């Protein structure tokens, strides 16, 4: 574990240093990413000039949801986003080169092409989240602060798990980038809005199948002292860390199975 983290740091560091040779371009890309994602939120804000509430939530509260989900996806994308490339690596055979190095292949693929400019997205999410927290009427307490912090970590872990699951799938299927994007970026778009606007089936699947509702929805209900519109148990509102552990475990199992199958089928 420690050696994997060290290897991740080494590989990511080499990429950061390489990108710093073009410092101006790096700064432009990072700022650009932050601006593009800001426009993304501006679209939601404009929508609220016509309505006062969406699914029972104010603009500030939607900003809270948006910020939590955006931060989690941004962090996961920064740390694990490159697993998208796995399909290509399997097809062109360079995945084999990763299997003959003394570092876990998942670490190598995740840290490969590590792009610090993705911090732009995280910065934007933090800004929106900060504004959302200020604009929502939250009755602060110590447990609420803890839930918020735990959720940011758990949400990142959940999206990381989705990236790794997608990676495992790509090792087997050769190419499934689009399927994977549907869950990561698609999941992010879905959770940017209050789940109360979706049918109950959608909510159930993002609770029990792909646990994206734990990235922001359940903890936000707790922070805002809102009753669950779908009447699901309130225990779910503190369960994000549990969901993150389960998702990570499922991803680890799938990844191991994927690599094992690759090594035993050769395809």
């Amino acid at each position, binding site marked *: 574990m420690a050696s994997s983290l060290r290897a991740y740091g*080494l590989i990511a560091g080499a990429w950061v240093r390489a990108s710093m040779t073009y410092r101006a371009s790096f700064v432009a890309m990072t700022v650009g990413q932050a601006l593009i994602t800001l426009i993304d939120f501006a679209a939601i804000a404009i929508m609220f000039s016509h309505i006062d509430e969406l699914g029972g939530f104010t603009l500030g509260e939607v900003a809270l949801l948006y910020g939590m989900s955006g931060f989690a996806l941004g962090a996961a994308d920064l740390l694990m986003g490159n697993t998208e490339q796995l399909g290509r690596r399997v097809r062109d*055979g360079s995945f*084999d*080169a990763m299997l003959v190095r*003394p570092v876990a292949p998942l670490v190598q693929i995740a840290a490969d092409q590590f792009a610090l400019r993705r911090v732009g997205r995280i910065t934007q999410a933090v800004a929106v989240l900060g504004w959302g927290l200020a604009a929502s009427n939250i009755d602060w307490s110590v447990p609420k602060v803890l839930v918020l912090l735990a959720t940011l970590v758990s949400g990142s872990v959940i999206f990381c798990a989705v990236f790794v699951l997608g990676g495992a799938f790509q090792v087997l299927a050769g190419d499934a980038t689009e399927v994977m994007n549907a869950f990561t970026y698609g999941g992010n778009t879905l959770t940017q809005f209050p789940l109360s606007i979706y049918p109950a089936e959608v909510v159930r699947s993002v609770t029990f199948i792909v646990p994206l509702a734990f990235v922001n929805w359940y903890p936000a209900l707790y922070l805002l002292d809102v009753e669950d519109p779908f009447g699901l148990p309130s225990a779910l509102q503190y369960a994000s860390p549990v969901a993150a552990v389960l998702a990570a475990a499922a991803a680890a199992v799938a990844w191991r199975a994927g690599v094992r199958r690759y*090594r035993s089928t050769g395809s």
Partner: protein
Amino acid sequence: MAVIEVTDLRRTFVVRSKGGRLRRERREVVAVDGVSFGIDAGEVVGFIGPNGAGKSTTIKMLTGILVPTSGRLHVDGLDPSRRRTELARRIGVVFGHRSGLWWDLPLRDSFALLARIYDVPRDRYRTNLATLVELLDLAPLLDVPVRQLSLGQRMRGDIAAALLHDPPILYLDEPTIGLDLISKARLRDFLRDLNAERGTTIMLTTHDLVDIEHICRRVMVIDAGRLVFDGDLTALQRVGGATRTVVVDLETQLEPVRVPGTTVTRVEGPRQWLSFPAHSSAAPIVSALAAAYDVVDLSIQEPAIEDVIRLLYAAG
């Protein structure tokens, strides 16, 4: 002492193909079919065979990438598929068709990164890098991103990368494929010196018999998943009855020339083809020709690997 021991190694693949409208046929293809051999420390072994013979599959099992279907396999005392990452520190691997380097990083950064991943001590890395840069003539390439290198340059970079951690065993899968003649010759010299000076055990797959002739003392021929020959190159040529050919351009059109130890197999105007056993030297033939006839030009053709294998079968 054997550093690589392979006993009855077998590897099958399941191939699915469309059978009927909905049915998919499952077919088992045997890629490696009961191969056994041992390689001693310091040996240089050429592994040859036609496309799809099972060369790469065997190399992938020896490096731990692929899990064998059955059979026993030990490399430096380790079972490659079970202890892949541990073995990775003791072997160097070069795949001819694909780079193990980071595509967008300059060569220098790739090397520095690998040294740290493999925990190469700083001093050791500095001396290794200096030696490899000199021997492989990498100095002008160090700051170029790998994607901008030519095939031959990239191959040299890949070989240096595979040797930074002083592996006692080096596998090369088609290292000379696509290289020009000069690059090939330099690479062969380098590998021969590496073996002589550091005692590195080298196993390489190739299509090119000249690679074998220049660097390998031992050759293994694999065909349809089976080891059909294991010995030195001269013995292979003797067993197979392979021939080399002198193509000579004479001053004028003549009757088939008479040179001891050769037979004329073809005459086309002033050009004649003389074949002779592949294991004997071309030098006396060339001098005999030059002494007795007016020679304008001549060249020597090596037997193709496919021909050698065909003859090997014919010899039974």
